C-alpha cells in the first residue's frame, strides 16, 4: 500500500524540471534528525527559501540561536500567510534534519505549535495562528 501511495509523488517529481531549489543531501544530513523546542525570534521571508530563526534553551541554561530552512515565501503568501502569521515570541517545536557540518541550522520538516497545529499548514485564513486576510509584502520584514 505504501508503495502505491508513493507512486504519485514520484510522478510529480518526474514532471518537475528540478526537485526543489537545491539538493537536500548537500546541505543537510538525513542521519542527523533533530527536535528543537524554542521561541521564534524572526522569520526571514526571502527566496529561494525562507528562514525561521528560533532561540533554543540548552540543558546548561544557555540559549542558542538556530536557523530553520522553510518554504519559498511566494507559495506561503499565496496560501494566505503574511508576516503576521509568524510572530516573534511564539513557542514552536521543530522536527527536521541538522546541517551536515553540525552548525545550528536545520531543515524544517515539521513546525509544530503549542496547540498541536502546524505552522504553514491548512488553507488560507484557516488554522494559521495570527493569520490575517490583510495584505502586506511578503518581503517587507
Amino acid at each position, binding site marked *: 500500500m505504501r508503495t502505491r*501511495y508513493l*507512486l*504519485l*509523488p514520484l*510522478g*510529480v*517529481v*518526474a*514532471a*518537475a*524540471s*528540478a*526537485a*526543489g*531549489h*537545491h*539538493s*537536500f*543531501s*548537500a*546541505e543537510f544530513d*538525513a542521519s542527523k534528525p533533530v527536535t528543537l523546542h524554542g521561541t521564534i525570534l524572526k522569520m*526571514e521571508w*526571502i*527566496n*529561494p*527559501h525562507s*528562514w525561521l530563526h528560533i532561540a533554543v534553551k540548552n540543558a546548561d541554561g544557555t540559549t542558542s540561536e538556530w*536557523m530553520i*530552512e*522553510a*518554504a*519559498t*515565501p*511566494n*507559495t506561503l*503568501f*499565496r*496560501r494566505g500567510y503574511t508576516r503576521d502569521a509568524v510572530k516573534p515570541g511564539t513557542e514552536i517545536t521543530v*522536527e527536521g*534534519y541538522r*546541517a*551536515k*557540518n553540525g*552548525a545550528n*541550522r536545520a*531543515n*524544517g*520538516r*515539521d513546525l509544530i505549535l503549542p496547540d498541536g497545529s*502546524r505552522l*504553514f*499548514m*491548512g488553507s488560507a485564513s484557516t488554522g494559521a495562528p495570527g493569520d490575517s486576510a490583510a495584505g502586506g509584502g*511578503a*518581503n517587507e520584514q
Partner: protein
Amino acid sequence: MRNRIQVLTVALLATAGVGRSVVEAQTSASAAPASAPAAAPVPRTSWGDPDLQGVWDYRTITPMERRPELADREFYTEGEVAELEGRAARRMDKAPDPNAPSTGLVHADYLTDPGRHVDDAHRTSLIVDPATGRMPALTPEAQQRQDAARAAAAASPAGGRTDSYRDRPLYERCITRGLPSTILPTLYNNNIRIVQSPGYVAIVHEMIHETRVVPLDGAPFTGVRSYLGESRGHWEGDTLVVESHNFNGKAPFRGAGANLKLTERYRRTSVDRIEFRMTFEDATQWVQPWTVAYSIRPADGELYEYACHEGNYGLHNILENARDADRAAAASKH
C-alpha cells in the same frame, strides 16, 4: 523607434512587477476570474490580437511521461482522476509522517505547491507526441553523453561536487532555470505573466525572475546565444507561436541545450484557459521531435518577486559544509 519604446515599456513594466494598473488600463482585458462563463468570447486586445495577458498558473499533477504500468493507455478514467486529485490534496494537507524516510527533497510535501489537479485533457502524460506518452529514444551520441554524465555523478559525493560554486547547478546558484525548464510544471511557483503591445509579447517567469521579450515583427534571429536562447513569435490564426533557439547550452534540459529548438504555442480557448503546447527538436539528442501539451489557468493572485540571489543562504551553507569536511579530513591525516 516607436516599436523600441513599446518594447522597452513592456519590458520595464513586466520586469519591475509594478504598474499592473497601468498595463491593465492600456489594454482591453487581463485574465478574467475563473468564475466567468467558459462560453464568453475569447478576449482580444484593442489592436485586435487575441489577448493572452494576465497572470497564469501552469500547475498540474499530470506527469510529464506516462507511468509504465499504464502501457499505451492515453487517458485516465474519471475514477482515476478523482483518486489522483484526492491523493494530491491529502498529500498537501497532511502532516509529515515522522517515521517516513527522508525523501531527498528539501521540503516536506505541505511546504511545496505542485497543484492538485490532473490536466484538463485527462491524458496520462503531458507528452502528447509520440503516442507512447514518453520521451523518444536518445541518439547514440546522446546516450553516450548521458552514460558519461551519470558515471561522473555516481563518482561524485552525495549531493554533487562542491569544490567551487561553479560546481553547483545554475538554478541552485540563482542564475537561471533555463528554458524550457522555466515553463514546465515543477514543485512550486508555477506562474507566468503575459504582457502584450502591438508587435511584442513579454513573458515574465516568476521563478526565477526572468522576462522574455518576444518580437512578432519578423525580426531575424541575431545568432547571439544566451541562457534562454532567442525567441521570435508570430500569430498562426489565433495561436501565438514562439520559436526559440540559440541557447548557450549552459542550462540544458535532459542533456539538450545548444542544438535545441523549441516551439511554444499559446491559444486562448476561453476567458479562463490557455492551451499550451511545446515541441522539442534536437537531432543530436532525440531520434524524433516530441511535444507536451497542457492547459494554463488564471493564477489566483499576483506574480510575486522571486529575488533569489540575495537570500540564497543555501549555496553558502553547502560550500561551508564542504570546506568544513575538507578541514576535518585534513586534520584526521595528522
